[in-house]
């Protein structure tokens, strides 16, 4: 297979990684300041607004919550979000800013969409330009694009506090954490990114669709809207729900290679920086870098592998005298479902990044990837969205794996496991097990039910093993709160809207609640001083063990399904 990457291909991949890693320390340090309530770059501009919000909401920012109150606040906030969005989606027709007269959604699709956006999944069983008014895109979806990563970041900070506090009943104040994440982190970054994206051609208008008289005489109705503002937070908040059906492949969402680069950096930025925020807040930066290293070491080989597979092209085309070789004049490779301006490398890096991070935006159609090229995003999601992962969610998910790793390492050397001076005991391991097993249960049972029932089979688009992969991908994406799809699947049916909605809720809250329980339990403990028997958690040996645990859990749980889907399809592709 002619699948060696071009020099430019390697350069693009290396540049992307370098820029991302260079942003980790400045942004991570800034986020640590924000969450510790310290004076920061934006306090002179936004401090008054923060205080005003506290006053209006009746929040005392310094009141600590125990973990149960914190969890209740998370659930309450999410429930209010759900109800608000659900009702707005049903009544869309009655609301303003609806120039294309989009009707209300069906109850099952409104349920799926509300759950999807509040859980940071942004799975879309609708096509944005046909099913969503400007009002809903802004007041409904853009708002949830801010709220859901802010909740993720808040829960992460609560877990970090659990690790750092000694014999304390509290893990912080949810309202303070959530408001600070929105005001100081998500809002300023979004505004900057939105303006840069807009300068490149991402549309931002309230005008109705534009009628164009095409060069060959045909009329073309150009869907537009307030896209730039939503696009920015869609990427920065690791949301991924496109304004348009084609998501970041649509030229009005992602018009140039530069916007593509900024979008993919934006989605990686906060999850990667969270590692450093963690290191700063626990007072030992090496702990954060160790986790970042583990994530990066898993990410890079898979990303390169996917790129090489896509560059290899479609072997069926060989008989048709079609040129798939990369040259100075074309990207070559498997171009079905890819945009010319992105070619192979910008598409596969995006695909790996969006699924490593639980973003789910796409700039190419994953269903049309080669089987092993599509295996990469599927596997990255199956690791549980901890290879960078969602904003906040990636780090607290990875810390669950860290707890399991110190437990297993402790068993091997025969000592009580500790992490950052906290003893890891039965309660923490029970909670970590729930957080780790719940997604597996929902993915595997959900897929099994779908492929065994008529309602589930009805949605399948591609024949053969690829059809199975579509279903597997859908349940994996929903449960791990990613949101990307093998989009051939017809998911706007009562069956998929309901089943995937339940999976999204389970994948979000069966992790958040155990994580907060662990935070509460750890906060109440004493700190054990470092001794000769303490397992260092910042060195190469620990990073290697952590990688081993993530890979073994992911691969052992899902090997049979991966074999039945992408692997079978790969062997079917041999001419």
């Amino acid at each position, binding site marked *: 297979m002619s699948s060696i990457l071009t020099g430019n291909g390697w350069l693009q991949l290396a540049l992307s990684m370098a820029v991302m890693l260079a942003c980790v320390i400045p942004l991570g340090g800034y986020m640590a300041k924000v969450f510790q309530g310290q004076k920061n770059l934006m306090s002179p501009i936004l401090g008054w607004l923060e205080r005003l919000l506290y006053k209006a909401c009746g929040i005392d920012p310094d009141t600590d919550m125990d973990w149960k109150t914190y969890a*209740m606040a998370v659930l309450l906030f999410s429930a209010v979000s759900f109800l608000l969005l659900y009702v707005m989606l049903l009544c869309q027709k009655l609301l303003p800013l609806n120039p294309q007269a989009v009707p209300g959604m069906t109850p099952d699709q409104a349920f799926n969409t509300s759950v999807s956006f509040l859980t940071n999944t942004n799975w879309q069983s609708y096509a944005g330009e046909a099913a969503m008014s400007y009002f809903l895109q802004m007041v409904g979806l853009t708002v949830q694009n801010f*709220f859901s990563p802010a909740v993720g970041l808040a829960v992460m900070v609560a877990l970090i506090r659990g690790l750092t506090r000694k014999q304390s009943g509290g893990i912080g104040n949810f309202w303070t954490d959530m408001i600070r994440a929105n005001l100081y982190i998500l809002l300023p970054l979004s505004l900057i990114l939105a303006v840069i994206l*807009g300068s490149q051609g991402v549309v931002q*208008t309230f005008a109705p669709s534009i009628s164009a008289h095409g060069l060959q005489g*045909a009329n073309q109705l150009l869907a537009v809207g*307030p896209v730039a*503002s939503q696009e920015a937070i869609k990427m920065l908040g690791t949301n991924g729900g496109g304004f348009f059906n084609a998501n970041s492949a649509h030229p009005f969402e992602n018009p140039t290679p530069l916007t593509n680069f900024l979008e993919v950096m934006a989605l990686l930025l906060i999850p990667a920086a969270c590692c450093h925020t963690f290191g700063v807040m626990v007072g030992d930066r090496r702990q954060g870098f160790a986790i970042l290293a583990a994530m990066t070491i898993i990410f890079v080989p898979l990303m390169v592998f996917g790129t090489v597979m896509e560059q290899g092209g479609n072997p069926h085309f060989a008989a048709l005298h079609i*040129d798939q070789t990369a040259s100075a004049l074309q990207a070559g490779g498997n171009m079905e*479902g890819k945009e010319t301006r992105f070619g192979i490398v910008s598409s596969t890096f995006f695909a790996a990044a969006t699924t490593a991070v639980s973003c789910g935006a796409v700039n190419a159609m994953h269903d049309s990837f*080669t089987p092993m090229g599509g295996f990469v995003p599927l596997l990255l999601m199956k690791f549980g969205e901890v290879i960078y992962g969602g904003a906040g969610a990636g780090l607290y998910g990875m810390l669950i794996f860290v707890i399991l790793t110190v437990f297993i390492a402790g068993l091997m050397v025969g000592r009580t496991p500790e992490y950052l001076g906290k003893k890891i005991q039965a309660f923490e391991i029970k909670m970590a097990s729930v957080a780790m097993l719940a997604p597996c249960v929902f993915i595997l049972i959900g897929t099994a039910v779908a492929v065994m029932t008529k309602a589930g089979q009805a949605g399948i688009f591609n024949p053969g093993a690829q059809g199975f992969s579509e279903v597997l991908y859908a349940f994996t994406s929903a449960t791990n709160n990613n949101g990307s799809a093998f989009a051939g699947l017809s998911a706007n049916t009562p069956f998929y809207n309901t089943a995937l909605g339940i999976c999204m809720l389970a994948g979000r809250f069966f992790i958040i609640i155990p994580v907060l329980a662990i935070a509460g339990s750890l906060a109440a403990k004493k700190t054990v001083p470092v001794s000769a028997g303490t397992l260092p958690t910042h060195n190469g040996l620990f990073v290697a063990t952590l990688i081993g645990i993530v890979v073994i859990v992911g691969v052992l749980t899902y090997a049979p399904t991966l074999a039945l889907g992408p692997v079978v399809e790969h062997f079917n592709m041999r001419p």
Partner: protein
Amino acid sequence: MKALASNLRPALVSTLLLTLLLGVGYPLVTTGILHLTFPSQAQGSLIRDETGRVIGSRLIGQNFDQPKYFWGRLSATSNTPYNASASGGSNFGVNNPALMDAVKARVAALKAADPANTAPIPVDLVTASASGLDPDITPAAALYQAHRVAVARGLSDDAVKAMIRTSSYNRTFNILGEPRVNVLELNLRLDGKMK
């Protein structure tokens, strides 16, 4: 229950106020800034004819199937190709027979329009884009069609190739993305409607 009651007000009021700030204020401020600084981009990078009628967007591809025009990517948008109100790809898997049917149909159409051309066909000319609205083709795909267009218009190959170069975009900073040719701009130049 006491905790629930005391958290109800923050839940409701913060949702309301942050919705105003992030769902109304932020998009409006973004709109304001972009309409002041980049009005053309914010409204869709539109191309108009001399009477002011919109021909299309520089960023959105159009369907071309006449021999005198350069053809773009295949488009799998619903109802009609390049339907800019229903973006999307074909979602065909690599082994889907329907993919092969679509590719073979495009190969046949290209051959029918230019029977003498025996060069291998660049892959982007026979595959559907992700958005169905891809405005670009590769330089290879443009050069493959240059002779056909030149013959259809009674131009020299060199004149057509010069217009391809004018409508070409290099990688950003020579690194990011891929070299490409904007099909609508190229066809407008051929028609003398763009410089």
